[in-house]
């Protein structure tokens, strides 16, 4: 059996300013996720950072736990997240609870 994978676009053509969280995406089937961020225009605030949130129901969120010390330009490369208990995932900036 060839390993299965799935790619989704969590957000598209969105201007991220201030605190921002992507819409929830269910991924109970996933053992791991690799996140990419693509800037369509030059970023005005290269110091932004983001991290992964997990949720059991899409409404209450907790940190996934992977250190998110990288800034967005670095983070725009692939980032691997191993999490076997994802039900919902979303991307959120530092500081959003």
């Amino acid at each position: 059996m060839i390993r299965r994978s799935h790619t989704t676009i969590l957000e598209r053509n969105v201007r991220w300013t201030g605190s921002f969280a992507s819409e929830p995406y269910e991924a109970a089937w996933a053992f791991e996720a690799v996140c990419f961020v693509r800037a369509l225009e030059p970023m005005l605030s290269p110091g932004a950072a983001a991290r992964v949130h997990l949720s059991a129901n899409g409404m209450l969120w907790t940190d996934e736990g992977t250190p998110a010390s990288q800034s967005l330009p670095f983070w725009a490369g692939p980032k691997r997240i191993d999490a076997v208990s994802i039900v919902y995932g979303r991307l959120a900036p530092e500081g959003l609870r």
Partner: protein
Amino acid sequence: MTLHGAPNDTRLWADPRLSRFSPLSRILFFDDFDCGMNGWTGLIGNYEGSLGTMLPEYRDLRPPMLSTISMWDTGTVGGLDGTYALKLATKPRPGALAVALKRLTWRYAGPLQLEVIFTFKPEAVALELLETDVRAFGFGLDLQVGDRATGAAERVMPHLRYLNALDGRRAEKWQFKRAIEPLRDIGGSGKTRSHFHLAPTGWEDVPRGDQRLCYNEIATKHNWYYVRIGFDLGSMAFTEFRCNDRVFDPSGIAPMRFPAMPNLSCMLNPFMWVEADAPTRAFLYVDSVVLSAEVDS
């Protein structure tokens, strides 16, 4: 003789999941979302050069996902069978839409039939019924004639939606749309155009199309429904429409029809969508879909 869901149709007994449906003689696809996305993807508006050229209404459409239908109070529901259903979720904003579609082409200008087992609910953000938080969900086909068609060179789009609520009031009726939205040029090359066919304007009531569905009594309980839509690619007209026990007169409903577009010959794209009526995410879940046809041998 057409084995239209007859009890002795051995195709249906070969797979009990298929026996829930009444397909025409040729099954074009049978998608059970326990087996993945099966080619259903999000709808994106046409663009040229920049995503910014897309019609604004298309920018926020949310893509489908595979859902275990997990509720905060009772845990995982799963599909009608198996674990997963296809889920469409809007953003939490009145009028927000999520759309899924699958892209095929057709090979015989004859009868088509779309059957869907589905349910809908808003996100259970409050311990209330929330029965008016979902505005609508719907099913459609995006069709175009072949490049050697002898009749009118048309693109045809049958649309049917269940208007559950509007501006916070229950509506609970089926509607169709034949009104054409403006076709706008995209970019500057003259190659691409776009129209927002799911706009809130131009919907008409299906005759005797009021129907109260089994919404159930709290926001975290789901009951599965069945819908069947028959459409003939030869006459480009509806031939059948039913939801659960209700059979509606197909002569009272009509599709959008407008001149064919250059690059869409024989297009056959089934699609479905859900729309929010409140600042709450609206969800449409689909357990399985069958598209079938009468195909010449």
